[in-house]
């Protein structure tokens, strides 16, 4: 406590001193200066500095105005961000120049009114408003995937584009939005047109006065990139020009630089050329002012990212080549000679954008398809190096760099067998998003069965939900009614015997005969197989588990009525070595007492390694014949397992598994009670393929209804 107040006291003393320094005597003589000082002391250091700066400039304008500003300043900061405060002060000064002190003081004193207007104008464009668009736009432009992040400056480290948290340079929101787009595009152009090739970065770092040179290099690159964009993206080029500052002095310097750097504007000019030219500008003290969309350069940040990535991608590339060879060998069994040779040939090289180059790959002289991830990898390597160096072409089993995740989890290799229960072990690949490739046969999964429990649970549930069950049954019966056999059709799959007999009778008696003699089913023939995948992770303990079991009971009643084929499996596990699915009801099985007892016996187990469960159950589902196949997951949260399977990794693997089964023709759907699911489910399952249920007890009511909507 004492420390705190002492600290506060010191703060106030410092603020008072700074304020005096910035604004001279006049402010300090204000009657309520003590209160003001302690209010100012509460502001963030940045805001304080900003305030003192304003004081300095106001003290050169007018003392009265300054005093009134200091009086209102704490309030102003509580109402507006510093940009707003700046505009407020600027506004007052302009008013002072044009209309005199009175009007200016009025503006300062009516700070509340000003702040309201400022926020209403809505001229600002925030990062959050622009980021989705920018991400899509930049992806469309091409090249390796770039992340977006907020920073006080605009720059790129070749992995992320750093952008300010808002732009309000222009009085129109649209223009500020465009400024975002163009700033991002300019940074994208650096990554696309080779500003940060590894050779360039190394060269910059070797020079002495790095910062000086970097600033000039930046300007020269602006010239080169602008010319590239003019050639490749003329529409964008026009938008850039429209955004340029009108300021004539700056324009003159730019024009001078451009004419001296004419060779950078020619097609084929490289970043190394810009770097070479820097020396020719050694004498230049005044640099052309950066346009609002031209960012800064931070070569050290680039270097960190670049060196790590180059090393990683080299290994990824080499091991991908090895995979190709392994695949080939496994096809041509027996003839396992190690001398397979992979060759790579550049077949299409577009001016500039290195990520756009096309390669042809051949294995022992035979042209092979380049797998997609290898294609991306090639693109990314080209962006960094501009070529694929010789030594990259040496296939390599396993780099030391990879498999960090494996180390954690593969220690207990014998674990699987020691479990006592024998049974088939299924192995599945797992998608490793950091390496952008599969960990082959990484997960071991077993099918276990659930111990039977008392089946009273089922009866109790049926009684508890008597009302809802009735209405579920009614709606489902209505669905069935839609699918009747249609008789007396002009054509169809079967003969309508009644009609034939009628028409035979007509024929015999000499009447005109009908041609409507066929039967056919209506279009919407129900031919559905559905797999329910029940989350049995530890987190479902309690309510969730009860709600899951109750939902299943209701579902089974409904499905029995519909006649859809269905299976129910639980899933859980701990690490990739012990992935487990629990049989509750198989496809061929009847909804028997045994199944009821299993439903009743579902209990929470361990973690949620979702990808492998999806792959396995998707596989089972695929073995059944049905026109429509659904995999419905009931879950309570995001995929998470012990030992590295979490966050992005878990989500990416799950997403990948879902894509795989989608490719195989299965519709995945997820019903969850995780309120945060909006963050990750749309990404994994797709925008329309999930439902979030906000309260656990509602689950049983909702699930049957969701199923109806899904299948009609």
């Amino acid at each position, binding site marked *: 406590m004492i420390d705190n107040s002492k600290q506060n006291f010191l703060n106030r003393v410092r603020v008072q001193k700074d304020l005096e320094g910035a604004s001279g005597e006049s402010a300090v003589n204000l009657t309520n200066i003590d209160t003001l000082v302690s209010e100012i002391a509460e502001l963030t250091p940045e805001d304080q500095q900003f305030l003192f700066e304003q004081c300095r400039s106001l003290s050169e304008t007018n003392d009265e105005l300054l005093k009134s500003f200091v009086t209102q300043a704490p309030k102003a900061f509580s109402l507006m961000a510093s940009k707003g405060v700046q505009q407020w002060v600027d506004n007052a000064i302009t008013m002072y120049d044009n209309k005199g002190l009175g009007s200016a003081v009025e503006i300062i004193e009516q700070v509340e009114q000003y702040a309201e207007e400022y926020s209403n104008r809505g001229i600002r464009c925030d990062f959050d408003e622009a980021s*989705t668009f920018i991400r899509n736009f930049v992806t469309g432009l091409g090249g390796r995937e770039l992340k977006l992040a907020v920073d006080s400056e605009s720059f790129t480290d070749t992995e992320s584009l750093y952008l300010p948290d808002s732009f309000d340079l222009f009085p129109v929101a649209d223009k500020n939005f465009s400024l975002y787009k163009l700033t991002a595009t300019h940074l994208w152009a650096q990554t696309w047109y080779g500003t940060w090739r590894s050779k360039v970065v190394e060269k910059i770092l070797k020079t002495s006065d790095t910062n000086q040179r970097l600033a000039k290099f930046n300007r020269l690159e602006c010239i080169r990139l602008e010319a590239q964009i003019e050639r490749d993206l003329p529409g964008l080029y026009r938008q850039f020009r429209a955004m340029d500052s009108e300021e004539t002095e700056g324009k003159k310097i730019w024009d001078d630089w451009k004419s001296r750097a004419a060779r950078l504007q020619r097609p084929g000019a490289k970043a190394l050329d810009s770097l070479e030219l820097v020396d020719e500008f050694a004498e230049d003290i005044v640099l052309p002012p950066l346009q609002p969309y031209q960012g800064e350069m931070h070569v050290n940040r680039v270097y960190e990212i670049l060196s790590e990535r180059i090393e990683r991608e080299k290994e990824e590339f080499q091991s991908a080549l090895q995979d190709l060879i392994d695949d080939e060998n496994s096809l041509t069994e027996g003839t396992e000679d190690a001398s397979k040779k992979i060759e790579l040939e550049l077949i299409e090289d577009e001016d500039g954008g290195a990520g756009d180059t096309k390669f042809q790959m051949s294995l022992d002289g035979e042209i092979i398809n380049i797998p997609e991830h290898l294609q991306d990898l090639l693109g990314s390597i080209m962006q960094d190096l501009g070529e694929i160096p010789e030594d990259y072409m040496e296939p390599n089993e396993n780099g030391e760099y990879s498999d960090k995740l494996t180390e954690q989890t593969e220690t207990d290799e014998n674990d699987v067998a020691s479990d006592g229960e024998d049974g088939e072990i299924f192995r599945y690949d797992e998608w490793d998003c950091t390496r952008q490739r599969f960990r082959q046969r990484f997960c071991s999964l077993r099918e276990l069965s659930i111990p039977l429990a008392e089946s009273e649970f089922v009866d109790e549930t049926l009684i508890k939900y008597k009302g809802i069950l009735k209405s579920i049954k009614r709606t489902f019966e209505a669905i069935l009614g839609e699918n009747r056999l249609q008789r007396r059709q002009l054509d169809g799959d079967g003969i309508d015997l009644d009609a034939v007999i009628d028409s035979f009778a007509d024929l015999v008696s000499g009447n005109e005969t009908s041609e409507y003699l066929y039967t056919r089913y209506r279009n919407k023939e129900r031919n559905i197989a559905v797999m329910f995948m029940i989350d049995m992770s530890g987190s479902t303990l309690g309510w969730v588990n009860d709600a899951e079991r109750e939902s299943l009971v209701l579902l089974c009643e409904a499905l029995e009525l519909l006649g859809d084929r269905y299976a129910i499996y639980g899933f859980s596990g701990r690490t990739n070595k012990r992935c487990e699915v629990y049989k509750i009801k198989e496809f061929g099985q009847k909804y028997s007492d045994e199944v009821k007892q299993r439903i009743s016996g579902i209990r929470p187990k361990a973690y949620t390694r979702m990808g492998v469960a999806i792959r396995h159950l998707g596989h089972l589902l695929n073995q059944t014949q049905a026109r429509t196949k659904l995999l419905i997951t009931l879950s309570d949260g995001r995929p998470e397992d012990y030992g590295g399977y979490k966050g992005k990794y878990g989500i990416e693997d799950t997403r990948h598994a879902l894509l795989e089964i989608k490719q195989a*023709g299965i519709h995945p759907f997820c019903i969850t009670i995780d309120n945060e699911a909006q963050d990750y489910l749309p990404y994994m399952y797709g925008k329309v393929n999930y439902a979030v249920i906000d309260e656990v007890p509602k689950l049983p009511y909702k699930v049957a209804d969701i199923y109806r909507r899904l299948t009609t």
Partner: protein
Amino acid sequence: MPVEETIKTSQHFVEKEPYYEAINDEVDVFSAAYNNHLPILLKGPTGCGKTRFIEYMAWKLQRPMVTVACHDDLTASDLIGRYLVKGGQTVWVDGPLTDAVRNGSICYLDEVVEARKDTSVVIHPLCDDRRILPIEKLGELMQAPPEFCLAISYNPGYQSVLKDLKQSTRQRFVAIEFTYPDSDTELKIILQESQVDKKLGEKIVKFGRMTRNLKGSGLDEGASTRLLVNAGKLIQDGIKPVVATDTAIAHALTDDPDMLQAVHELSRSIF
């Protein structure tokens, strides 16, 4: 709909050489498969030239061709034929497949996965080395002549459940995979088909690539060659490029406002 129309076959000789730009060695592969009486599976995303290719091959091999656009109500009898009652008498009418087998044509089942599953019953025996078509209702086993050829198409990119091709079916075919052509070839196609000038054509190709970059990051599929050709045609007809790409491409690809905006801006950045 009158009965005669549902079973009328679209068998015809392709008289004029269709414009087809070979993308790979598909022409040779198809010819070889044809010579060896092997059925052919054309696999690839929509609008990449599969239909055009088969027309070209029919012309090249000088065979009549029958195209059946499969839909989810198409049954085996629709392919084989059926008895119809006409004025008190029953008449047998060949379906398009029977017709093709009889005449030694090329039969092209477009989007075969759309058809009912029972169609595989008739397709399978035609596709192994027996090459027979069982016509149950006539009690007949029809032997396909050497000139007969069955080709089916299939788009593996669809994520819908209804559109998966069974292993037992696909493993009977020689599969030719189609992808979007490389930039130069695609440019040639666009120039030829839409008659735009080279400079515009190049921009259209570039734009196509950008939309394909977005595949998987918001778009299910990038713009197909067909869509690019369509946009070219609109532009050639005086529509502003950005409007043409919006209408012929962007809205054909997606309804998502975010994606529409991105695709629109990408177009603006090129044209």
